[in-house]
C-alpha cells in the first residue's frame, strides 16, 4: 500500500488511478488521516503563497527577518494576532529602522528639502518593506474582494486617499503609518470599487509607482528589495490581466446589438459576439500600459492604463482597418465618451491615435489568421 502523502501527491498531480483512489478513501475513514488531508491541502496552499511571493534565495536573512517582523506588526493592525507579540515585534522593527536610519538618509527626500516633522523623518526606513507587504495583501484583496462595494463608505476612503496621493505626487515625505495606509486605502478602494476596469487602471498605476520607487532606492537597498518589488509588480500585473480578462469576457454575449456610427451604448459597453481570441495582455509602453483584446467577431478593445487619462478604444475590424465605435477618456472621476477620433479634444487625440497605430502592428496578424480559419461563435464561451 502506498503512503498517504504519496497518494495525496498523486491526486494533486491528477495522476491518481482508481485503485489509488480506493486506497485514499480507505485511509480517509480514519479521523487522523482526514485531519492530515486538511493539513496537507492547507500547507499546499500556503506553499503556493509563500514560494510565489517570498524569494528566499535572493533575500538576505536580515531582510527576511525584517519582513517577518513587519508581517507580525502589520497583523496587529488587523487584530488577528496576539497584541503583545505584535508590540514586541514592532519594538524590534523600530529598533532595526533606527539602526538603518543613517544608511537610508536622503533617499526619500533626494532634493534635500526640509523634513517637517520627526514622525515624517522616520518614513523612508520602513517604506519599501511596509509597502511590499501591503501590496501583496493588496493583490490578494483585489482578487478576492473587487466585487464588494458598499457605496456609503467610498467617499471617506476617496477623501483619505486623495490626501496621501497628493503627498506622494509632490514627493513629500509620508509618515510611515500613512504610507501603509495609502496602500491599505488602495486595497480598500479597490475592494469597494465596482468597475473592474478602474481597478485594473489602479493596479497598473501602482505598478508604475513601484517601478519609480525601485529607481529611487539607494543601490545597496535596491539590491535587496528589487526582486521583491519586481515580484510585487508581476503579481499586480497578473491580477490586472486576470481582471481585465474577466471584464472582457463579460462583454461577450449571444445577443447582437448592431452599432451605427454616432451611436453608443450607456454605460459604455459594446456588445460583442463570439469569444476572446487574443489578449488581454498588459504591455508596457512609453505612455503607460497597453492592453488589447480581440474577439472572434472582429471586435476589439484597446486600453491605455496606468497614467492619466485612461483611454479605452472599442471598435471592429473592417478588412484591414480598425473602425472606432467608442472612445472613453477617464480623468479621475470624470468620464467622457466619444464616438470618433475626431470628436476627442485636441489635447488627448494624440493618445487615441497612438493606440490605433499600435493596434494593427500588434493584432492584425492574429486577427487575419483567425478570420481565415474560424467562424464567429454564437454562444457564450
Amino acid at each position, binding site marked *: 500500500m502506498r503512503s498517504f*502523502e504519496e497518494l495525496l501527491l498523486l491526486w494533486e498531480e491528477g495522476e491518481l488511478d482508481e485503485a489509488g483512489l480506493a486506497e485514499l478513501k480507505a485511509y*480517509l475513514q480514519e479521523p487522523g488521516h482526514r485531519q492530515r488531508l486538511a493539513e496537507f491541502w492547507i500547507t499546499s496552499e500556503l506553499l*503556493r503563497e509563500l514560494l510565489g511571493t517570498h524569494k528566499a534565495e535572493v533575500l538576505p536573512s536580515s531582510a527576511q527577518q525584517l519582513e517577518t517582523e513587519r508581517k507580525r506588526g502589520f497583523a496587529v493592525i488587523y487584530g488577528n*494576532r496576539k497584541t503583545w507579540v505584535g508590540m514586541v515585534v514592532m519594538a524590534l522593527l523600530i529598533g532595526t529602522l533606527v539602526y538603518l536610519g543613517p544608511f537610508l538618509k536622503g533617499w526619500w527626500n533626494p532634493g534635500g528639502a526640509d523634513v517637517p516633522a520627526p514622525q515624517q523623518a522616520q518614513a523612508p526606513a520602513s517604506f519599501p518593506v511596509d509597502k511590499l507587504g501591503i501590496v501583496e495583501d493588496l493583490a490578494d484583496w483585489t482578487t478576492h474582494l473587487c466585487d*464588494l462595494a458598499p457605496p456609503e463608505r467610498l467617499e471617506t476612503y476617496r477623501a483619505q486617499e486623495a490626501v496621501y496621493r497628493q503627498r506622494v505626487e509632490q514627493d513629500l515625505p509620508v509618515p510611515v503609518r500613512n504610507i501603509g495606509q495609502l496602500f491599505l486605502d488602495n486595497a480598500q478602494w479597490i475592494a469597494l470599487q465596482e468597475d473592474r476596469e478602474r481597478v485594473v487602471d489602479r493596479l497598473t498605476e501602482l505598478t508604475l509607482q513601484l517601478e519609480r520607487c525601485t529607481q529611487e532606492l539607494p543601490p545597496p537597498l535596491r539590491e535587496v528589495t528589487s526582486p521583491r518589488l519586481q515580484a510585487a509588480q508581476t503579481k499586480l500585473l497578473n491580477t490586472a490581466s486576470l481582471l481585465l480578462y474577466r471584464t472582457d469576457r463579460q462583454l461577450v454575449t449571444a445577443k447582437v446589438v448592431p452599432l451605427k456610427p454616432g451611436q453608443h451604448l450607456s454605460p459604455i459597453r459594446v456588445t460583442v459576439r463570439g469569444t476572446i481570441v487574443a489578449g488581454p495582455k498588459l504591455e508596457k509602453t512609453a505612455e503607460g500600459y497597453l492592453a488589447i483584446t480581440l474577439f472572434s467577431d472582429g471586435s476589439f478593445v484597446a486600453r491605455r492604463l496606468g497614467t492619466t487619462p485612461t483611454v479605452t478604444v472599442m471598435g471592429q475590424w473592417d478588412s484591414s482597418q480598425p473602425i472606432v465605435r467608442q472612445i472613453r477618456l477617464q480623468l479621475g472621476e470624470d468620464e467622457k465618451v466619444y464616438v470618433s477620433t475626431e470628436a476627442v479634444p485636441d489635447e488627448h487625440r494624440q493618445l487615441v491615435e497612438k493606440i490605433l497605430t499600435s493596434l494593427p502592428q500588434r493584432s492584425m496578424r492574429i486577427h487575419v489568421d483567425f478570420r481565415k480559419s474560424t467562424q464567429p461563435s454564437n454562444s457564450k464561451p
Partner: protein
Amino acid sequence: MTTELERVTLEFLRNRHELMAFIRGLVPDAALAEDIFQEVWLRLEKATQEGQDIAEVRNWCRGVARRLILHHWRQQRRSKLVADEELLDLADQAFRESPMDELTGEREEALQRCLEELPEHARQILRLKYQDGKTAAEIGQQLGRTAAAILMALSRIRRSLADCVHRRLGWSQETP
C-alpha cells in the same frame, strides 16, 4: 445589513486560506479554483443581502464550494475521476473536523521557518512544484530524475515539513 455583511466578510477573509485549500485540493486548475472561490463569495454576499441568517460562515462557504465543485466535476466528463462524491464528502468532513483555522498566520510563519531549514535541493523541488506549478514528470526531466523519484522526494519533504511545523507550533506529532 451592512454590519452583518461586514461580519460575514471578516469571517470569510479569516477562513479564506482554508476555503481556497479545500477548493484547490479538489480542483487543481488554479483559474477555475479562483472562479469557484469568487462565486462562493458572491453567493455569500447575496445571501447576506437577502437577509439569510448565516451563523457558521466557514461551513456555509465550504458547503457552497462543495456544490460548485460537484457541479464542475459532473460537467467534466473527460476527467479520469468523475464526480467521486464519496471523496468530496470525506474531504468536507476532514475540513469540518479540523480545528477552526485561527492559526493560519502562525502556521504560515512556522512553515516559512521550516522552509528555510530545508536543504537547497529540497527547496528547489518545492519551488518547481508550488511556485512554477510543474508536474513531477516535468521536474524530473529538468533535474535528470524519474517522476517516481520526484514523487518520493516530495513525499519525504512534505512529511518533514509537516513534522517541523508541528514541532514549531508545539503540537504533538499525532494530533495538531
